[in-house]
């Protein structure tokens, strides 16, 4: 007999909660004690546990959506049971919630969200009534490209028998509330730029001078991930300067040699390779803290942050430690190009073990980046600046680059981070080592 | 005639060795009918034939090696290996095929004669057909057109008395083919097709008449095929052995030898020359390469722009017409 899971009371003052992230998918088997989801309350983010065995048949309240205490948020039962009778209550009725991040429409997780970006055929289970999600091919493709989760529209499309068709996705992406399924609520009143747990605001219309912009799914995902990272990962920062003279010279020489192959190395390619080799050299750093356990990484998969008009995306260069520089450059260039054209595949933004973020081309000499969980660190790279410095008692002008390593203190210590940075410096200051 | 005889005998043998595939119709016994009518042709004349065309090809002078190569399906064949036994041709020598559909060559021959007339060329067309083709609609239409348009064409009905397994008496309401021309007020006559000299005389006369007077004619040359309809037919179920034996007594080659008083030694020498020539032709043809499959589409169309015209048809084409791409996975 299928039963509802309702929004639990996780704090004494809690009146409503927001699903931060489902950790299981529709169709997954669940057992007593499994963590099903993370729920944001007025106080903190708590885990939702399963109290019985079964199959998660239907998710009624999606990531990012809120529900009143006691409102149904999911259905668990035996495989194949009919769950068409279940729906979320209109728990999000009134004004903007105490936690301003409450969203009242089918908030789709962004492409970088590992959980549920792909449309239903990739997800294991069928929604209500059994059978796969009915959507036209172009609707699927548009949704996939935009990182929009079609399951929110399942069965409610404008096509025959509720098939999701192109107009449905177009409207949903344009932010129309008319596309909202279970959560029948007025559009968000709170300015979308409000960060996580903001002080309660009255549900007043914003002042005339400002306008409300509905953030894209990608922006929402970035906002959420960055918030989580800052809130949950204990960051500390290590900084050093790297003399890039030899690295720049080697780069020029190599590019001259590779000119007729059409391969062009960037400074970032050298930095990525240096980091990858350093990660290989320092396994003690190359670990991730996930849910109380340490995961030792083998190969180094280095993400490269790419700024887009509407956000940020981090495609991952897999096996960066085993790719020769030339191949790494080709891979990197391709990923960056496709990141900009919006044609990255899901698996290309997952699985990173470290990231590099470079704002040097925008004139930033030094900055500190936010870690992409569950990676142990991220290297923030500034511009190469010719500066006066002392060498052997003499004042000389050297091309110096400031880098900042952010480290997850649960995964690595200060000494670990320092050793990593030292090695990265060594590779870049003796760049021939990058070739062997 | 010796050349044709030997060629056809060896062709039969090569067919049994599986070097020749498909249909293969032999002209053994009909050599005089072929040679006699082609010999008086002028260089500007044209000849078309049915699928029993090996004799025609050799009679116009095509090299035996290239004809055998076509039977073998080789690139050096007279049709590049694309036609086979039934579709021989020799454009330089004005032999325009070799046609597989019974009676199909008739309207086309009429068109060739029409073109000669259109361009005021003083030439004629010899259209060879079997008596089995006289019952198909195209025969009637073609003779009618030739007659109303006064075209320079001679229809040579090579009457070997059997259309596959059906005797001419069973198939034709008027088995005396030469008489059918009367329905079109066209001149018709019959000669003994096994008498090379008689055939030659009649054909010469009628071709001249066609060239000079622009009038069509029908020439029936009666003959007999010693073999079956094709190599796949023994020719026995529908013919009595006595009949075949009797016909062999009128072998056109023997007849000609007797008429011309050629001595046995000369015949033997000629035979041996011919045998050697055919042997060499077979050896050469067997060694020749097959056509390249990459050229499969080269001759479907011939307009200078055809590739450009078809360039936008490739999208979404069936497998094999569109190798190697799958746009929908990109």
């Amino acid at each position: 007999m299928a039963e509802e899971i309702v929004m639990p009371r996780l704090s004494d003052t809690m009146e409503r909660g927001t699903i931060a992230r489902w950790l299981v998918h529709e169709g997954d088997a669940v057992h007593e004690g499994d963590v099903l989801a993370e729920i944001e309350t007025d106080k903190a983010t708590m885990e939702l546990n399963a109290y019985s065995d079964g199959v998660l048949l239907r998710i009624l309240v999606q990531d990012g959506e809120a529900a009143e205490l006691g409102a149904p948020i999911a259905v668990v039962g035996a495989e194949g049971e009919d769950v068409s009778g279940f729906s979320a209550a209109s728990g999000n009725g009134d004004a903007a919630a105490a936690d301003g991040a409450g969203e009242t429409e089918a908030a789709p997780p962004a492409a970088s969200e590992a959980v549920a970006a792909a449309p239903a055929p990739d997800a294991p289970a069928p929604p209500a009534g059994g059978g796969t999600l009915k959507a036209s091919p172009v609707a699927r493709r548009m949704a996939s490209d935009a990182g929009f989760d079609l399951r929110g529209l399942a069965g409610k499309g404008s096509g025959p028998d509720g098939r999701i068709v192109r107009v449905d996705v177009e409207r949903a992406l344009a932010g129309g509330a008319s596309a909202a399924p279970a959560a029948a609520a007025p559009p968000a009143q709170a300015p979308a730029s409000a960060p996580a747990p903001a002080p309660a605001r009255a549900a007043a219309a914003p002042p005339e001078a400002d306008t409300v912009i509905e953030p894209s799914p990608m922006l929402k995902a970035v906002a959420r991930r960055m918030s989580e990272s800052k809130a949950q990962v204990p960051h500390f920062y290590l900084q050093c300067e790297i003399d890039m003279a030899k690295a720049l010279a080697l780069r020029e020489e190599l590019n001259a040699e590779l000119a007729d192959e059409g391969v062009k190395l960037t400074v970032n390619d050298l930095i990525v390779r240096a980091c990858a080799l350093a990660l290989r050299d320092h396994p003690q750093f190359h670990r991730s803290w996930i849910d109380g356990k340490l995961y030792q990484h083998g190969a180094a998969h280095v993400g490269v942050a790419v700024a887009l008009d509407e956000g940020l995306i981090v495609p991952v260069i897999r096996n960066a430690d085993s790719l020769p520089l030339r191949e790494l450059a080709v891979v990197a260039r391709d990923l960056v190009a496709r990141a900009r054209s919006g044609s990255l595949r899901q698996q290309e933004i997952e699985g990173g073990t470290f990231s590099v973020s470079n704002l040097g081309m925008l004139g930033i000499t030094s900055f500190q980046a936010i870690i992409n969980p569950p990676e142990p660190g991220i290297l923030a790279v500034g511009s190469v600046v010719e500066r006066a410095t002392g060498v052997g008692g003499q004042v000389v002008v050297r091309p110096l680059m400031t880098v900042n390593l952010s480290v997850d203190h649960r995964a690595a210590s200060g000494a670990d981070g320092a050793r990593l940075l030292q090695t990265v410096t060594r590779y870049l200051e003796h760049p021939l080592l990058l070739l062997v | 005639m010796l050349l044709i005889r030997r060629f056809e005998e060896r062709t039969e043998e090569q067919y049994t060795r599986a070097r020749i595939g498909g249909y293969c119709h032999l002209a053994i016994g009909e050599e005089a009918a072929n040679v006699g009518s082609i010999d008086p042709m002028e260089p500007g004349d044209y000849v078309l034939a049915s699928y029993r065309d090996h004799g025609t090809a050799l009679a116009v002078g095509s090299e035996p090696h290239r004809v055998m190569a076509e039977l073998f399906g080789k690139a050096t064949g007279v049709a590049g290996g694309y036609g086979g036994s039934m579709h021989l041709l020799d454009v330089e020598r004005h032999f325009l095929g070799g046609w597989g559909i019974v009676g199909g060559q008739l309207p086309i021959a009429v068109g060739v004669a029409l073109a000669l007339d259109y361009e005021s060329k003083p030439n004629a067309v010899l259209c060879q057909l079997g008596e089995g083709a006289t019952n198909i609609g195209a025969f009637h239409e073609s003779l009618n057109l030739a007659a109303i348009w006064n075209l320079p064409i001679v229809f040579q009905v090579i009457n070997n008395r059997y259309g596959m397994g059906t005797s001419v008496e069973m198939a034709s309401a008027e088995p005396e083919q030469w008489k059918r021309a009367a329905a079109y007020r066209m001149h018709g006559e019959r000669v003994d097709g096994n008498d090379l000299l008689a055939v030659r005389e009649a054909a010469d006369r009628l071709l001249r008449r066609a060239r000079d007077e622009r009038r069509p004619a029908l020439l029936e040359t009666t003959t007999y095929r010693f073999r079956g309809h094709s190599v796949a037919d023994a020719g026995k179920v529908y013919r009595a052995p006595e009949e075949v034996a009797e016909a062999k007594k009128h072998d056109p080659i023997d007849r000609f030898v007797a008429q011309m008083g050629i001595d046995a030694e000369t015949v033997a020498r000629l035979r041996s020359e011919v045998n050697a020539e055919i042997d060499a032709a077979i050896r050469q043809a067997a060694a020749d390469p097959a056509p390249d499959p990459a050229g499969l589409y080269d001759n479907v169309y011939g307009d200078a722009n055809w590739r450009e015209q078809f360039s936008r048809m490739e999208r979404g084409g069936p497998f094999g017409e569109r190798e190697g791409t799958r746009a929908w996975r990109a």
Partner: protein
Amino acid sequence: MAGVTYREALRRALDEELARDDKVFLMGEEIGRFEGSYKVTAGLYAKYGPRRVRETPIAEEGFVGAGVGAAMLGLRPVVEIMTINFILVAMDMVVNHAAKVRQMFGGKVGVPLVIRTPAGAGAQLTAQHSQSLEVMFAHTPGLKVVAPSTPLDAYGLLKSAIRDDDPVLFVENLVLYNVNGALPEPGDDFTVPIGRAQVVREGRDLTIVAHSYTVRRALTVADRLSQHDIEVEVVDLRSLRPLDAETVIESVKKTSRALVAEEGWATYGVGAELAARISRECFDDLDAPVERVGGAEAPMPYSKPLELAALTLEDKIEKAARGLLADCGLLAEA
């Protein structure tokens, strides 16, 4: 130039090509002194005489075959078959001979022949005189098949067909003969290339593909749907073999919805061919399966209401379009 009828456009093309190249000549029933059963060749016999405009008896197999033979010798015959229904009598000469000659003879001789013939129905001409059989020939390698829908295209395509070195079936339409359109100046030597479709109306919501008279019907349907804020893109194929699949696919990628309309029977028809190609190239771009609409799959009846029910009229095309649009959430079902 002022507008002329489709019929006149054909006549002008024939006139100009006859004047341009002595190898061009016409053959057909009643094309001479009778001036053509549909008056397409009016005046040409008087102008060019019997050598260039050759009347034939009723013997399609015979005179189409003669056309093949003459073409093999380098002439450029333009053979008229009174209606496409009669081409069946000459089927052997078209499919077994004209289409095969070049390949069978290893490329050593070709057939620069044009066969002109009207297809279509609508005047109670009954079953044997109301067919649209062009797909049988579009199916055949070795042939080219074109089907213009406007006087301009008829003019330009007939010139291209006559100058083409391969056998071309030039498909006209009885109703189209009276349609008006502008023609360019003769001195322009205007031709339309074989193998190129044309987008005759742009739109973003639905692609309708058609050829010959059906294009005009599709345009009418497009105007009707425009009232409902649906913008239909109409693609006029103009050429069935070679088929300009690129243009169709680009259009469907844009609109994500496709309907193919034809006068002939849809089963094994133009729509069947395009649906296969569209499904291959636009697999992820479709909002709904490709829809096809064609004539009723029954021999054409005589009685007027029955005939109307059998034709691919505007209402039938519109209904199919509406159904498709409804499936895509753009319209309520008609």
